[in-house]
C-alpha cells in the first residue's frame, strides 16, 4: 500500500488518525499479514496511522509482533500483555497508552466499525477520550481500486491457486481404479500444492464431490469415486493479496448431460465477462446474466455472481442484484456464475479479472478451464 495514499485518505476523512482492527484493513494499511487473525477474536491487533507526523504504530499480542516486523514494518510496534486484564481490556489499555504517546488521546479517530466488535469499541472508549467515527466507506472505496503492484500480487495468487488444483488433479490421474485417493487427501493436495507453488496463505478450502457438490462445503470425508463431479474452491494469497478460484472436474469421461451443463454455465459466464467494464453497474450485470439464464432454462445458484478480491478474498464491489455500484478501472473481480447441474450440483468456474479501460483482463490465466477437466487416467491431458 502506498503510504502517501494512506496519509491522504486519513487526511481527507477529517480524522487525526485511522485506527483499524480488521485483519484485512490492517494488511491494507501496514502491508503486513497477521497470523490467522480472523480466527482469534479474543486476540487483537490494531494499526494506527496518523494524518500527520512521522510515526505510525501497531499494537499486537506478543507472539505476533516479530512477524509484523519481519514483513518490513519499520515504525513503532508495541505488544500488549495478555495478563493485564481480560479481553479486550488488556489490549484497549495498551492501545490507549500508545495513542496518548502519539498525542491522539482526544483526537477524532477513524476506525473500521464493520470489523470492530461492539465490546472492543466500548473498551476503547472507556480507556481513551478519543472520538471514534466510522471510516468503513473510505476504506471500502480505497481498497476496491488496486494499484499495479496490488494487481500483480493477486495475479500471482491466482497462479498458485490454479497450480494447487491442477497438480492435485494430476495426482488423481490413474488412481481411480487402484487403492485410490480419499477426499481429505485430495483436498490437502490442493492446499499443499498451492503452498509449494508459492502461496503465502490459504483461506477457504472446500472440495466437494458427487452429491456433496450440491453444497458449498462438507467436511472432507470418504473416497474419490468414478463418474462424479468434483468442485475445488480455494482462496489463497500472495503476500496478503488474495484470489478466489473454483474449478470443476469429472472423474471419467463426462457424459453429455454433464458437458452440456458445464457448457451452459460457461456461456453465462462469458456473458458476465463481456460486461465487466468500467462504468458497468453491478446490479445490471447480474440482471443480464439472470435474464440470459432464464432464457436458457438454467438455474442460477445464489444471488451473487462476483465480488472483489484484494486484502480479503471476499470484498467490494459485489456483483449482486440490488447493488447500483459501478465498476471502476482498477477493480479486481472474482467472477463465478454458479448454476445447477443435472443432479443439482453447484457448477462454478471462478476466474479473477482486472477491470481495465479496455474491459476485463483475466488474471487467472494459468490454464484454460473452458471445458470441464476429465480425470480419465491419461496424463497426456495435463
Amino acid at each position, binding site marked *: 500500500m502506498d503510504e502517501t495514499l494512506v496519509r491522504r485518505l486519513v487526511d481527507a476523512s477529517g480524522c487525526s488518525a485511522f485506527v483499524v482492527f480488521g485483519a484485512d484493513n490492517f494488511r491494507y494499511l501496514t502491508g503486513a499479514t497477521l497470523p490467522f487473525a480472523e480466527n482469534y*477474536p479474543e486476540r487483537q491487533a490494531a494499526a494506527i496511522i496518523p494524518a500527520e507526523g512521522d510515526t505510525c504504530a501497531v499494537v499486537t499480542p506478543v507472539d505476533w509482533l516479530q512477524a509484523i516486523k519481519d514483513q518490513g514494518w519499520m515504525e513503532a510496534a508495541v505488544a500488549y500483555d495478555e495478563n493485564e486484564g481480560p479481553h479486550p481490556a488488556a489490549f484497549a489499555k495498551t492501545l490507549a497508552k500508545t495513542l496518548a504517546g502519539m498525542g491522539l488521546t482526544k483526537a477524532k479517530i477513524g476506525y473500521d*466499525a464493520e470489523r470492530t466488535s461492539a*465490546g472492543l469499541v466500548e473498551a476503547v472508549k472507556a480507556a481513551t477520550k478519543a472520538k471514534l467515527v466510522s471510516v468503513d466507506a473510505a476504506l471500502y472505496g480505497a481498497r476496491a481500486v488496486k494499484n499495479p503492484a496490488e494487481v500483480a500480487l493477486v495475479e500471482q495468487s491466482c497462479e498458485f491457486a490454479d497450480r494447487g488444483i491442477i497438480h492435485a488433479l494430476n495426482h488423481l490421474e490413474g488412481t481411480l481404479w487402484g487403492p485410490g485417493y480419499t477426499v481429505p487427501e485430495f483436498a490437502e493436495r490442493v492446499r499443499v500444492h498451492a503452498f509449494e507453488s508459492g502461496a503465502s496463505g490459504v483461506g477457504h478450502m472446500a472440495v466437494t464431490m458427487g452429491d456433496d457438490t450440491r453444497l458449498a462445503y462438507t*467436511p472432507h470425508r470418504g473416497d474419490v469415486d468414478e463418474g462424479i463431479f468434483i468442485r475445488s474452491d480455494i482462496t489463497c494469497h500472495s*503476500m496478503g493479496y488474495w484470489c478466489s478460484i473454483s474449478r470443476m472436474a469429472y472423474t471419467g469421461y463426462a457424459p453429455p448431460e454433464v458437458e452440456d451443463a458445464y457448457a451452459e454455465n460457461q456461456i453465462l459466464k462469458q456473458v458476465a465477462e463481456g460486461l465487466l467494464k468500467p462504468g458497468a453497474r453491478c446490479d445490471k450485470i447480474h440482471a443480464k446474466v439472470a435474464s440470459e439464464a432464464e432464457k436458457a432454462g438454467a438455474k442460477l445458484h445464489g444471488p451473487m455472481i462476483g465480488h472483489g478480491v484484494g486484502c480479503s478474498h*471476499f470484498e467490494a464491489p459485489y456483483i449482486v*442484484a440490488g447493488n447500483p455500484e459501478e465498476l471502476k478501472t482498477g477493480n479486481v473481480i472474482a467472477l463465478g456464475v454458479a448454476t445447477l447441474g443435472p443432479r443439482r450440483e453447484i457448477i462454478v468456474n471462478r476466474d479473477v479479472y482486472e477491470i481495465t479501460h479496455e474491459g476485463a483482463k483475466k488474471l487467472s490465466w494459468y490454464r484454460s478451464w473452458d471445458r470441464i477437466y476429465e480425470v480419465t487416467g491419461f496424463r497426456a491431458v495435463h
Partner: protein
Amino acid sequence: MELYDKIVAAVKASTFDAVLVTGADNYAYMAGATIPFLALYPDSPVAVIWPRRGDPTVIAPEEWEETIMALSSVKKTVTYSRGVEAFAKAAADVLKAKKDARIGVDLLRIPEATLQQLKKLLPETEWASCDGLIRELRAVKTDEELELLEDAAYRVDHGIFGTQHHVLLTSTRSEMSLGEEVRVHCLERGLDVVAGHSVSQGTSGPNAAKFWPRAPYYGVGHEKKLKEGEYVRIEARYSLDGYWGTGSRLMTQGYPTAEQREAYNNIVALREAALAAMKPGAKCSDVYEAMKAAAKERDAKLVEGLALGHGIGVADIEAPYISANDDTKLCPGMALVIRPVIEGPKGELLWSSDTVVVEDGGPRIVGWYKDWRVPYVANYTL
C-alpha cells in the same frame, strides 16, 4: 443432543428473551455446525437467534442455506441476499415479534456497525451482553465434547510423534519436510485440515527463536535443514468434527546437552506446577501464579506478556485463560491447554503444550502418545 439441551436450558434460565450470537466460533457452538470458513467472511455474517421459548433460527446468506441446513443441528433458517445491512434486517425480522425484548448479544463478536443497525431497526429492544453466558457455556464441556477433544489431542500428539520418529541424525530432514510429515501423519489419523488456520510447522535452531519464522508464510515449514545439536519445535493444529487439537513438542537433534536438558526440565516443572494447582475450585489466576512461582524458583526464562494456557473447544484458543487476571474458577468438565513459553539456551522459544481435562479428583492430561517428561531425541536409528 446433549449440547443442544444444555443450551436450551441455559437460555431458558437466563434473563434474556432471546440470545443472538454472531461470532463464527459462537455460531459453531450454538448451531453445532462445522463450517470452518465462516470467520473469513465478515461481509457475509451468520448468526443464531435462540429464543427463551421455541426453536432457534439460523440467519445465513442465501447461497449457504442448504449447506448450513445439512451441517447444523438448528434446522430453521432465514436467509438474506446481500451484505451486512440485509443481514441486520433479516435478524431484526426474526426478533421483532418480541416487543420491548431484552436480547442477549455477543458484544465481543458483533461488529459495532451491525449492532448500530440492529438498534435502528429495533429501537425498543434492550441489547445486553451475553458474552458471559456464552463463555460459561462453552468453558464447561459435555461428555461428548470432552471425548472429541481427548481424541483430537491424542491424534495430534500421535501425528507429531510419528513425524519425529522419521528423523534421523544421519539423514536429516528440512523444516519443510517436517511440516509435510506432520500434515500427512495427522491426515492419516483422520484429523481435519482446516485451511484457514491449520498448522503443521517445524522450526529449528535460530528459526525456533521466533514464533512465526518467515512471516507471512504461517504454519508451513521452510527450507532450512535440521542440524545436529539443535532444538526442534514441531507444532500441529487440526480439528476433529469441529473440535480442536493443538500440540507442540520438542525434539533435540542428538542427545540433549546439559543446557537443553535444563530448559526441558523447566518446562516439565512448569507443567507440574500447573497440574498441582489445577484443582476444581482453584482460580485460573492461581494456576498462573503457581507457574510463575515455579519459573522464578528455577530461574526459567518465561516469555512475558502471554497467558500461560487457555481453554480449547470449538476454537483452539478460547476462555478461560491461565492468566494473571482471569479469576474463572476451574470446575469438572473444563478442557485447557497448558502452554508456557520459555527461552532455550540459544534463545529458542520452547513450549510443549498439553491438553488437560479438569475432573472431580483434579486435572488429567489427555492425549499423550509418549511420556513427555523427556523430549524426543532424534538419534541414529529409527
